[in-house]
Every structure is written in structure tokens, then in C-alpha cells.
């Protein structure tokens, strides 16, 4: 049976660039927190200097590696490879001081950031650490992590990394840490990827490809979220009459939006025809910033309400 969204420990939000992935991740984290779950919204960033759009969307500065509080049930954290490397080294090496010395060595730091797969391994380790973080009473510090993954190519890279590391380094502490990370990533009861897409042909084909590739790497995909679905008040007959009229007068204000809503409908049909599960369809909205965030949060809470019914 598919576990409810609320029982997942890690929700991986992914999709092609520019589809509103970050806004969706922020709204999802907020709507889950609004249901009384302790939620951590996290974003994978490449380096300690990198900017975090998710932090910006949530209205926090996002410049430190330790989780920051956004509201009573919602926190934000950046997932930076170097933080993962440090905590990994602290666990793997017999003395903390050795780990700190290692991270101070520019040779080792450069190696960890420049050698292929190792930055991703650091990010995965940090993710695992945050999922496993506990309060002193043993309860999880965060019940759910909503992770804003990088755009398509890099999300795939991240999915590919653990297994490819194991090919090269099958034994030792790195291999063990990676296996534990995989244990989380592959576990349908704890992890699910949400693929965000726009209702346009190219984004739809790209997200279908992304979803297939994630499944190939054994990462469970829960389904698709169609973002910015244009308003469409016309029935088939009205459409037909508008099509005829616009053929005679193509340069009319409103025609571009009309054709766009038509394309959106076809793109959505294509997604459904491929057998994809559509988790939510979010209306395109004229508002932005805080107003957009509030509206999306409310809509998600409503759309996923059945799914969330199990939460007290």
C-alpha cells in the first residue's frame, strides 16, 4: 500500500528548471507543517557560498548549515556537501580532532569537492544525518524532510552517484555510509520523489524521462504535480467557434493565452496517457511572493487532504 504523504520521511521535489519546483517545495513544507508535523525544508546547494532560493522563498537568510527555524513547526536547512564530509569524517575517523584536521587540509578539501561523486556523497550523508536527527527523548527531530533537489540533470546525477560509488569503492566506511543512504533513498515507506512539471509539451516529455530515470535508479516516484495550469473556461464547442474566428483574425489580444490553454490541455492529456499519476494540479495564479505562497499552501493542503487524513 502506498504510504500517505504525511508518513514519508523524505519527500524529494524535482523537475526541470523553471517549473516552480522551489515554490512548490516551500508550499508543500508549509502545508505539512500546518498539519502539525515537524517539517524540515531543505535545499541541496553546491557550496557554502551558494545562494539558496528556497531559503529566500521561505523568508530566511539561509546562510548557515545548521537548521534555522521558519515557524513553530517548520525549519529550513541547506544541505552542503562539505558539512556532510565533515560529519562523515567525524564518524569514520577514530578521533574528532583528526576529522577537523582533515577538513582543514586543503588537499583533502579540494579532493572531496573536485573528485567526481564525492560532493554528492557528502550531500547524501548530510541528508541522512538530518533524517536521523533525534530529540533527547529519541523522537525524530523532523518527522518529514521536504528536499528541493537540483534541476533534472543534477537530480539524476545525484540518483546515479550512490550505486556508482559502490562500484568503485565496495568496502570501507564510505561504502557503508553510502549503503545506509541508499537504504533510505530506495525505501518506499520512507522516501518518495514528486516530479513537478508545467503543462507544456517539452517539460512534460522531460519530466516523464526524469521519472523513468529515477525509477531506473530505484528511487520511488510518487507522481507528478502539474504546476501553473492555465485557466480554461471553454467547452469543446466554444473552443471550436473561437478557433474558427481566430483563424480569420489571428492578431487579437487574448489569442495567445487561448492557444496556450489549448496546448496546456494537450500536454496534460499526454502526461495522463503515459499512465502517470497526477498528485496535484495547481492553477496558474496572477499573484506572486507571499500571496502566491499562501494560496499554494492552502491549495496543497486541500488537494492532498485525503492523503493527509491519517495525521492527527
Amino acid at each position, binding site marked *: 500500500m502506498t504510504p500517505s504523504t504525511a508518513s514519508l520521511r523524505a519527500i524529494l521535489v524535482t523537475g526541470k*528548471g*523553471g517549473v516552480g519546483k*522551489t515554490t512548490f517545495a516551500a508550499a508543500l513544507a508549509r502545508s505539512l507543517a500546518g498539519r502539525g508535523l515537524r517539517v524540515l525544508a531543505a535545499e541541496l*546547494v*553546491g557550496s557554502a557560498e*551558494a*545562494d539558496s*532560493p528556497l531559503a*529566500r522563498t521561505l523568508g530566511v537568510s539561509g546562510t548557515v548549515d545548521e537548521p534555522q527555524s521558519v515557524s513553530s513547526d517548520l525549519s529550513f536547512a541547506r544541505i552542503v556537501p562539505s558539512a556532510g564530509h565533515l560529519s562523515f*569524517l567525524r564518524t*569514520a*575517523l577514530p578521533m574528532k580532532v*583528526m576529522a577537523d584536521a*582533515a577538513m582543514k*587540509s586543503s*588537499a*583533502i578539501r*579540494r*579532493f572531496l*569537492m*573536485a573528485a*567526481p*561523486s564525492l*560532493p*554528492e556523497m557528502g550531500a547524501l550523508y548530510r541528508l541522512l544525518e538530518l533524517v536521523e536527527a533525534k530529540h533527547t527523548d529519541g523522537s525524530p527531530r523532523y518527522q518529514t524532510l521536504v528536499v528541493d533537489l537540483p*534541476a533534472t*540533470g*543534477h537530480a539524476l546525477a545525484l540518483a*546515479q552517484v550512490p550505486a*556508482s560509488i559502490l562500484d*568503485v*569503492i565496495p*568496502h*570501507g*566506511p*564510505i*561504502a557503508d555510509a553510502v549503503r545506509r543512504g541508499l537504504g533510505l533513498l530506495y525505501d518506499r515507506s520512507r522516501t518518495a520523489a514528486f516530479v513537478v512539471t*508545467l503543462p507544456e*509539451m*517539452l*517539460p512534460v*516529455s522531460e519530466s516523464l524521462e526524469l521519472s523513468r530515470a529515477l525509477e531506473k535508479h530505484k528511487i520511488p516516484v510518487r507522481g507528478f504535480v502539474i504546476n501553473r495550469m492555465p485557466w480554461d*473556461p*471553454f467547452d469543446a464547442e*466554444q473552443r471550436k*467557434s*473561437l478557433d474558427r*474566428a481566430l483563424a*480569420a*483574425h489571428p*492578431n*487579437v*489580444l*487574448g489569442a495567445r*493565452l*487561448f*492557444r496556450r490553454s489549448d*496546448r496546456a490541455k494537450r500536454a496534460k492529456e499526454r502526461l495522463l496517457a503515459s499512465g502517470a499519476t497526477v498528485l496535484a494540479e495547481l492553477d496558474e495564479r*496572477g499573484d506572486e*511572493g507571499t500571496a502566491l505562497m499562501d494560496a499554494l499552501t492552502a491549495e496543497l493542503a486541500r488537494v492532498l487532504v485525503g492523503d493527509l487524513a491519517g495525521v492527527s
Partner: protein
Amino acid sequence: MNARVPRRSFVAPHLEDRRVIVVCGPGGVGKTTTSAALGLRAAMQGRRVLVLTIDPARRLAEAMGVPANSDEPTRVDPARFAAAGIEVPGELYAWMLDPGTVFDGMVRRLTKDPTKVDEIMKNRLYRHVKNLVAGMQEYTAAEALYSFVESKRFDLVVLDTPPSRNALDFLDAPRRLSSFLDERIVSIFLPKGGGFFRAASQLVESVFARIFGDGFFKELQGFLSAFSGMFDGMREHAVKVRTLLGSDESTFLIVTGMEPEAVSESLFFRAKLRELGVGFAGYILNRSWAYTRGLMPPATLEGLVPAETLAKFVTFGQEEARRAKMDRARLQTLLAQDIGAEALATPNLGGAVEDLAGLALLADELGFHHEDERPSSSHPIVE
């Protein structure tokens, strides 16, 4: 349509003179399509152009008749241009970057002893590295750029980068690579690293033996030894690419959409370019709604569709007008934050650009200002 001669856009001189144009910007704004259109425009001006793309839209590749998996650039068949009614005196090539091919080419060029080539190609770590999608695109984009510019096969290379945050990695890759390949650093990993670096070398060895396991560290040393003869060459390439990107021969374009997130990512990116000290040509605001000139009011359809349908359609017209106003305001906001920057808006051409004819339309929009219709910083949009 008015009969006035269109004025050349700010992009046009770059298409004529530069050897490298790097197209960057946030994801989902049509960078790949814009890069292809820029390449086409330059080829229409008679240049031999390569559009080097990292993540191409499959359908665009199909439209250009270019295979997705190929070992080297494919020329767009002139017959296709002819069929689409486009006059192209130059040549247009496209290539989807394949990290494995770029790596193999680099190994062949840089390995002095040909018997060593086989040894490297068979090395387990090498095969792992070259087949990774992760992170390798950035290294190989820089390396591919170097080899294409060096070979002088093309007058112009248009490089389509991955979405913004990763594109920064691309700019940084040569520096990171050359800093890692610093001989002193590498020597720490090599066996018998001694003398001054002995202490560092011992730390590295003990840390690596513990975390990777002893066997792996030896394998890593073997890999680095096999490669060590190439490091000078790789570093030299990295430095040359950086120099090339910082020189007058190269320029950067930022393609952006009009959503607030896209605009803020673009400004962030602009700051990064400034910091890196590379040339910046200007902004291309893609798929803009800003144009309303020449459009008829929705009421034009009166009598042609039922009243109820028309009433609904009128709201579409109002929404389009609202978007036009908003896009213009955003364009002004962007330019207010980057005083003196060039900008050009390309109109929302309807569907995605999916064929050569669509690409040619976009190419025309990029090359020229159509007076009174097309906005730019020097030609502000007015209602």
C-alpha cells in the same frame, strides 16, 4: 507591418565578431532554443558556427536534424534550410556534449606515450569518472570549448550552459580543476610524496586509508600516477579556457524569463559574471508578453462567436493586457538594477519553437529591432 528598415540589435555585433558566446540564465527560460537561434543568425551572416549544448531539447535536435548521441558535431543539412526558405551562406553545426567522448579525446591529445593511452582507458577509476553524468559536464564543457576553439574549425562557438546555479560551476570548473591539479596537491596523493609535504601526505594517507579502505587508496594513487603526466596539459587548458572566457574574443549573454524568481536569479548571475571579470553583452528577455502593438481588441470577434464565449474570451484579452503591463514594468525594474545594461525582449511566439522556420523567426527577433514594435533599453516600451 511597417516598411521601415529594421535596426540591428545589440546582439548583432557580437554574432559577427566574437569567437565564443556563452549563453546562461535560469532554467526553463528557453536557453537552448535561444542558443540555437543565435547560432542560426550568425550562420545566416556567413559564419561557421557550432552550437554546443549540454542539455538540448530533444525536439529541437530533431527539428535541426541533429542526432542526440553523436561523437562529434553534426552539420545541419543545408537542404533543410532551403526547404524552410531560410538563406544560410554560412554553416551551422550542433553537438550535444558527451563527457565520455571529450575525456577520451583529451587523454589522446595529452598522453605523450601512446602505449599509455590504452592503460588509462582501461583504468577502472577512469571509466567510472568518464561515465558519470554528475559534475563531469562542467569539466567537459570547458575542455570541449577549448578544443573546438583551438582547432579553428569554427568561427564561433555558442555554448548553451546548464541552468544558472550549475552554470556557475561551469565557470568555476577550470579554476577548481587547476587548483586541484596543482602539482603540490597531487603530489600529496602520490606514493613517496616527501620532503616539505611529508606531514600533509601522511595525514592524507591515513585519512584516505581509513575512509576508503587501504586498497582503494592504492588504486587512486595508480590512477593519479597514470594521469600525472597529463596534469600539466589539463591545467594549461583550464587556464587557457579561463583566459579565453575573460578576453575580448568571448562574451556572455543572460537569457531570462520575466517571473520574479527568474529575474532575481539573473541578477545574481550577473553579479557572478562581474565578479569573474568576464564580458557581458546583455540580457535577452525571452517569451515576453510585452508586445501588444498591432493587436486588435477582443471585441473584434463580436458576431463571430456566441456572446457568452466572447465574454469569456474578453477576460483572456484583459489578462494578456495585464501581463504586457507587468512584463514592461519588470523589464524596467531589471534595467534599473543594472544601469547601462543592454536588453532585448523576444516575443512569445506562441508554441515552443519546434522547427527551423520557428527558429529563423526567433533568430530574426534576436538580430534586429523592428522599430516601434520591439522594445529594448534604448527603445523603451510604451503602450
